């Protein structure tokens, strides 16, 4: 888990989950955790500035903006596709 490969694999899984989970709140939560794991991998890869940027913008600001947008629009679930 502490190796960059494990961190990247966990991040990849969570980011893939964020694109496929139906509930948008859970999708944003998975995206946030995946971004945090990716930032940790950047720290391990000796890129502290990229990690800090990823942690503040990718995991913090973007996720909060998504949550605010979902809360304001009230679209918690993905709309049904008409058949």
């Amino acid at each position: 888990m502490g190796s960059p490969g494990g961190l990247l694999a966990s991040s990849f899984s969570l980011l893939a989950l964020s694109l496929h989970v139906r509930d948008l709140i859970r999708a944003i939560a998975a995206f946030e955790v995946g971004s945090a794991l990716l930032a940790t991998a950047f720290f391990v890869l000796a890129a502290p500035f990229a990690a800090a940027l990823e942690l503040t913008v990718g995991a913090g600001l973007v996720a909060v903006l998504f949550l605010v947008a979902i809360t304001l629009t009230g679209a918690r679930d993905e709309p049904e596709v008409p058949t």
Partner: protein
Amino acid sequence: MNARAAFAIAASAALFAVLSGALLTTAPPSVPAPGSPRWIGEALGPAGHSTSRSKRSSSSPAPSRSSSSCATSPGVQPMADGFLALNLGFALGLFTLGLAGVVTKRSLVRILLGIEVMGKGVTTRATTGEFRSPSTTNTLRSRRRASASGRGSGSTS
């Protein structure tokens, strides 16, 4: 997912892989810092096959370098290390995953999430390209230091 979307995803992923390989195999600058690795394969593995760079250096002799590994003209050895290939594979996977989300999803939030995931893939690739083992120096830092010292010595002389 229709055939056009699958083709777009495959073509973009292949383009990303080709661009990543091209950036990885780009020749280093002509003025490396003394004792520092000039490209990532030199820091991660043994010297690779000879390329046109070595041919050029054989026709016109290069200036003397302090490091013996630099004097052997290492050439280009793409993806010499499994760790590097693994990280680049994850970067390519993230980019493809985000692209698939952009192309196939209908919700605007999902499309924006896909764009974010694509950006994370590009960031991962850039971070992997600049990664060195802890025992070696960062290439960009050593290049800046070398250029700064060159400018300083040029202004004094």
